[in-house]
């Protein structure tokens, strides 16, 4: 430890930085989560649509269900930042 003394500005700045980091993590990780979840559903959905075109509406619905996770992440990020 060279100099452990932190000025008030440094504390504030690191708070802002950590908030930004948190916001980034919130969107990024939820994005990965949604992607992983949609991966399986999406490929099954394409297969099902190829078999029966009428299923399109239903499979679209199923495919986008995990998207909500990102929206949650986004809301959390925005609440952190603003």
């Amino acid at each position, binding site marked *: 430890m060279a100099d452990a003394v932190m000025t008030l500005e440094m504390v504030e700045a690191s708070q802002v930085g950590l908030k930004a980091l948190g916001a980034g993590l919130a969107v990024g990780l939820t994005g990965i989560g949604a992607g992983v979840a949609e991966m399986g559903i999406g490929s099954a959905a394409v297969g099902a649509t190829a078999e029966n075109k*009428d299923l*399109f*509406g239903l499979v*679209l*619905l199923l495919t*986008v*269900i995990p*998207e*909500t996770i990102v*929206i*949650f992440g*986004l*809301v959390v990020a*925005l609440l952190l*930042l*603003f």
Partner: protein
Amino acid sequence: MLAPREMSRLLIAAQKDQMEPVIAELFRRGVFHIEDFVDQGKEGFEGFKIGMPLPGAGEQSSKLIKIRGIENTFMLDPGVFEPKVKVETSRMKDLIEKELPVVEQMVEDLVGDRSKLEARKKGLEDKIEELRPFTAVPIGLDLLQGYRTQTVFAGFVARNAEIPIPHETYFQPSKEGNLIVVVAPLEQREKVERILLDAEFRPISIPKEQGAAAPRIDEYRAEIADVEQQMKTVDTRIEEVKLNHSEFLLACDEFISAQVKKNEAPLRFATTNLAFVAEGWVPSSEVKEISDSLSEKTGGKVFVTELPIDIKEHAPPVEYQNPNFAKPTQMLMDIYSRPRYTELDPTLLVAIVFPIFFGFILGDLGYGLILLALSLGLRKFFKGEEGVMLLKVLRNAAISTIIFGILYSEFFGFELPWPPILPSRHLNIGGEGEGAGAAIPELLIITIWIGIFHITVGRILGIINHARQDHGSHRTKAILANLGWLMVMWGLLIAIWSAFPIPYMPNLTSFPTVAFGLNIATLIGGIMLILGILFIAMENTLEIVEIPTIVSHVLSYARLMAVGLSSVAIALVVNFIAIGMIIEPQLENLTPVGVVIVIFGILVLVIGQVLNLLLGIIGGGLHSIRLHYVEFFTKFYKGGGDKYNPFGMKRKFTED
């Protein structure tokens, strides 16, 4: 409004000799949706059989196949072809007998000629391929074959081979493969072969040609050019025939298709030896007209009656009934599923709300104008019905984008000369922005309000749907459950408002406290929440696990802001990179190199904006429609109605 066209169930019965006039009249009117008779002991239809096609159906079908074959070679699509004049049906019969075989013969000959030429070209190309390796060999090809005492090997080897017997060899190393030609005595053939095989010899056949390979190739090339010339002539002839006869062919197609449809109609009727019965649907407004015209055409020898509709047993076909501006949106509905007959048809709501969502997301005057121009300009190229409908949806969305662009004060990401009327979306990209920057919390709350209202409307429609479709205790429970969902959502909201003051939302924190430090609003909210959960549980206890979706669905509308902001951010970044970082520094002190850099900057600007517009269309369109399909429709809409598909056809190339 909000309901499909009203249908009536008709039963038409007559003697078999009246079948033809009845079918002809039904076809001409084009409003009767035939319900196919299924030969499976239907009650009241014992002894009936599926009818036989009228005479001539088979012959016409085979004619149709021929015509469709020609249409295929010409790559004609009746959907996109615009006829100049319509042919009268009275003339069609004559034309089909006389002119059609001539055209057919002509096309057959031309196509035959073309495929012959193609085969010849292919053969010549193969010969050239065979000759190509021998261009390096310095002797004529006739010297490489036809020996009685010698044997000739030609082919590629991995490396040059030492052959320990008297022979002559020619070796030409190259990248593609080392060519080797060996002439050796016939009796030593096996030995030479083995040695060559050790060197990974791949034999090639020696073309049966005279003289050196290179001039032969040139000769063949000239021949190919000649064949290609001939092919071009045939192609222009085909093009000519296509130009002159497309319309006629499509008219024949249409005319014969109509004949076939009419002749095959009895396959969908119930018949006895002497009579036939046809059941089906017509729009209620057409019932009188069609009954009158049928009895007129048959001289009163037909029995037409309206049957009572039992919704449980018969599902009437569904025909949309919407004001003109909402019609293109029917396409978006059909992608999901056509509404059932008894269900509310939400097309009108989608037609209003979809463009608003799209505009809210994209909201940029510049992009809106480009989209509007695209949707109007592309109309010439999109001739199919679906394409036109899609363009109209895009047009509505573009108009909304323009309006929102003005409200947001955005023009390709730049600010217009007035302050935004809606909360600003101008982010501080590159730290160069002026003013307060984007008002993100306000936008977030607006989108959540939109979500609350949209979902509330969905639930109310759900209540109406259940009230109309269900019966008995199930009906009450379903209605209460929908009410329960509404109460949980609003109860939750009231509870939140009474605890935290939120901008742009009612502030209920100052309400008088009643008990346990809770104010009256919290209490009301809590009671609504609990009652709501009870109502939901009464219909189906398992549904309780779905309650968190209330939050997720409302928050899902935040995408309206999120997707929009991302496109604003991309526009701002593109502008900043292109103008702020590339163009402006050069303009201060313009040099010849600077001009090139400025042009490069403009290129970056244009490509970036075009990409962003594409992303905006995809993002704006997909997310808006997704909010409808997932968040809105799941509250009330089932779909699964049959398309109203009346017997008859839209005539494009022929007329009476």
